[in-house]
């Protein structure tokens, strides 16, 4: 292998590519060539680094200097300063938010400092399109160990002892799942990987598949050995073209290297693996539905038992594991169950990857030990709420989960503790919301999703979610009635108890948790016709507090319907008849002088006390 003085590990994940990583790469290569550094310094495209919000990002090895928000224009300067003059280029470094001091090293940046990387061990360090780089970082050693030195029972025992639980959401012990399938006698069994990451707000699996596809494949080889399966499928969403491409490449490389196919590593074990692309149905994340889909049918769930471990794909014993679960397997086999248990809690061992998004400063992919408090994740890693706004809730578990309020922020993140709040761990989406979000609208957003994605098999889910959605629409549009909250709760419970699969059983969770923690918002929507966040257009009126208005004119220029009048340096006014409730003025004003009052309010003065924060 060629050796270089420095490797520029440029992130080529979906996020950074969208922010212009491809152009930056071309610019870097051009500049390096121009400066005669082509032989000494190389640009490597890596998978998702995780720090998507600051993309395109790049780390320089071996110095470990981290650059962010790269632009084509800055590239010449960067190359000149860092690689010719040997002075790391401060302008593109991460700046500590308060004093704006540059932090050069990746490991010192708060976003990375609190993380423990296991699943994401290779992120930003290898070129995901080269099997050699994965192997160089101990890749396929675990598969070799499992295939040549261990029996199926031994593999299952290690995984069981590690306490690894399925990372897809429900948290079923992986070792146990494997054990069930291994005990069923059948010539044909299937090892399946669930890459149908459908929760809105979750992108861990996409990043793992893009950044480290071989880790998933290795996990599948080990799982196949454990249950004695010789065929496997990776089910990936069609919305993830890059993940499909990388996995396809990785599978081909494995066949060439003798890691897939007949007689793997001369162990006598055969395993064939292929990719199956989904076609856009959220319900296919459910295991029986996913198997129906691979069979080429409508992806509709079926009752269990029989469980897939007995009758799965084409009625053969099958095991379906999530991407993140599989990526952990090689580590556990190599390092043992005790090592794995050294992090996390008794019932939730190891680490968990989260997709941290929404109203936090540092958006991206993070990995933390189980049991880390939510507060640490949101404030230390996430860097707190954007623009110093007030934290309102964190949504976990996507449409199956719920919103966790500020009072529970010190809760450790484990399967057990999260379930107690009414949310679920889910696949790891964590969407942070600030006081600009209306919780009734958030519940409505998720119900729109589940009502649309319900496969239609069970009436309570198909019709019930629609009724819930209509009621929420009524509440947000000012037609809410006193007893609506009770009806919502009753109907939710009925849907939960009478639906066949996880989709229906969890669809009402967003409503139940928002009612539980934000009852006051429902009440103000229904009785006062007041959406305090100013999101529901029919339930708010915008006023300018004349005492606070400095007459800067920002809102006047921003208003798309020209509803604001006023002279410079004098308090402005909103002409209610023209206002379209777009909220633009509220977001533009730097002096908090725009106040949101109930629909049809006329006298702003007496209400102001209540809205001041």
């Amino acid at each position: 292998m060629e050796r270089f003085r420095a490797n520029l590990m440029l992130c080529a994940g979906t996020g950074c590519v969208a922010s212009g990583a491809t152009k930056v790469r071309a610019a870097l290569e051009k500049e390096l060539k121009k400066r005669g550094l082509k032989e000494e310094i190389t640009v490597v495209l890596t998978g998702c680094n995780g720090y998507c919000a600051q993309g395109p990002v790049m780390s320089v090895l071996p110095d470990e200097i981290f650059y962010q928000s790269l632009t084509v224009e800055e590239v010449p300067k960067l190359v000149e300063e860092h690689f010719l003059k040997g002075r790391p280029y401060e302008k593109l470094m991460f700046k500590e938010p308060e004093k704006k001091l540059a932090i050069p090293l990746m490991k010192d940046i708060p976003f990375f400092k609190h993380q423990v990387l296991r699943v994401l061990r290779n992120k930003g360090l290898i070129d995901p399109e080269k099997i050699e780089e994965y192997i160089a970082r101990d890749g396929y050693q675990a598969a070799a160990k499992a295939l040549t030195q261990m029996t199926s029972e031994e593999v299952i025992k290690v995984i069981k002892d590690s306490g690894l639980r399925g990372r897809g959401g429900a948290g079923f012990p992986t070792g146990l799942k494997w054990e069930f399938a291994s005990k069923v006698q059948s010539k044909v069994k299937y090892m399946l990987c669930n890459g149908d990451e459908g929760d809105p707000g979750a992108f861990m699996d996409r990043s793992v598949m893009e950044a480290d596809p071989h880790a998933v494949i290795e996990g599948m080889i080990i799982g196949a050995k454990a249950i004695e399966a010789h065929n496997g499928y990776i089910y990936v969403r069609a919305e993830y073209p890059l993940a499909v491409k990388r996995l396809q490449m990785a599978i081909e490389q494995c066949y060439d290297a003798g890691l897939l196919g007949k007689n793997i590593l001369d162990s006598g074990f055969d395993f064939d693996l292929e990719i199956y692309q989904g076609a856009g149905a959220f319900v296919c994340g459910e295991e029986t539905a996913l198997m129906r889909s691979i069979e080429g049918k409508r992806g509709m769930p079926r009752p269990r038992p029989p469980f897939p471990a007995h009758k799965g794909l084409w009625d053969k014993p099958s095991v379906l594991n999530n991407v993140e679960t599989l990526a952990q397997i090689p580590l556990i086999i190599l390092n043992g169950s005790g090592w794995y248990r050294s992090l996390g809690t008794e019932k939730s061992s190891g680490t968990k990857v989260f997709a941290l998004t929404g109203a936090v400063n540092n958006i991206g992919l993070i990995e933390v030990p189980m049991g880390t408090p939510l507060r640490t994740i949101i404030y230390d890693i996430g860097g707190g709420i954007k623009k110093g706004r007030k934290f309102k809730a964190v949504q976990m578990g996507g449409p199956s989960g719920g919103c966790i309020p500020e009072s529970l922020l010190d809760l450790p993140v484990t399967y057990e503790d999260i379930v107690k709040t009414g949310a679920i761990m889910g696949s790891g989406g964590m969407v942070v919301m600030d006081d600009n979000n209306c919780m009734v609208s958030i519940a409505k957003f998720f119900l729109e999703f589940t009502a649309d994605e319900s496969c239609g098999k069970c009436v309570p889910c198909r019709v019930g979610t629609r009724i819930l959605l209509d009621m929420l629409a009524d509440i947000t549009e000012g037609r809410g009635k006193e007893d609506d909250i009770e009806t919502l709760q009753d109907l939710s419970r009925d849907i939960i108890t009478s639906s066949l699969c996880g989709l229906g059983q969890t669809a009402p969770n967003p409503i139940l948790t928002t009612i539980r923690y934000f009852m006051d918002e429902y009440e103000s929507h229904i009785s006062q016709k007041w959406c305090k966040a100013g999101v529901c257009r029919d339930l708010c009126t915008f006023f300018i507090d004349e005492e606070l208005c400095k007459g800067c004119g920002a809102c006047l220029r921003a208003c798309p319907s020209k509803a604001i009048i006023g002279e410079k340096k004098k308090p402005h006014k909103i002409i209610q008849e023209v206002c379209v409730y777009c909220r633009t003025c509220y977001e533009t004003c730097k002096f908090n002088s725009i106040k949101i009052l109930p629909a049809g309010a006329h006298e702003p003065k007496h209400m102001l006390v209540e809205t001041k924060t």
Partner: protein
Amino acid sequence: MADNTKILVVDDEPVVVRSCERILKAEGYDIEGALSGREAILKIEENNYNLVLTDLKMPEMDGITLIRWIRKSRPSIGIVVITGYPSQETIKDALDLGIIDYVPKPFTPAVLTDVTRRAFEWIKGKALEKKIEEEFPPSMLNELDRVVNQYKKKPGSSIPVLQRSQEVVGYLPPVIQKRIAKGLNISPAEIHSIVSFYSFFTMKPRGDHTIRICLGTACYVKGIETIINKIKETLGVEVGETTKDRKFSLETVRCLGACGLAPVMVIDHDTYGALSRKKAIDAINQYAPVGINETPAEEIEAVEGE
């Protein structure tokens, strides 16, 4: 009775020709007779018939020879066989030549009118199919057949076949679904059930460029709704529709998994992140001009500053 209902009945027995004429004339068809294969050919060369009813066993030139001639020189004419000797062999020969149906002698008026009516329906359907086929160039249909053949023997291949087919054709109208169903040897109803279930498949033609807007939680929290409204207004279409000039199709997608860049949209294969109303329209403008971006500068700042 509609146009294109001209029939020629061919039989060496005048009584059969006359009774056919009487029965079908009463139904409103334009019908003529011929008493031999030779006469029939002469008449076909002179007139435009849509359907030929012919006997099989005739002196001089038998029915099979006549059918062969018609298939070769007038392939658009539908053929129905009337025969008193429906032996396995002759009927098989005729079926191989592509006849629509056959009527055993003796027949009742009801049977004849029924068969005739169905034959015309079939011809009409065929014409429609042909018209649609003209919309898809042969190269496209060849590619489609190649895809189907490639996957044919693999169990559970309907979804990959439909995905590839949609790539080839652009969308999956009923006629394409039928062709795929036939190729895979499964019922068109089952293919349709799959196409209608998965949101990835579309039965309507798409524009040159597909705009997919993310409706994920992060994008929602960051105000994707105002952006969708702006795009809808600019393009003059609703979600799920295609612009009149077939330049853009507007779609929404559940989550693109690029939440770090929210709000996000994808045009064809390119992702556009951290959108504002102006940035979204600017991005679309790169593909085809959709009008001047009138969003005032301050509003953009406000949204971007979010």
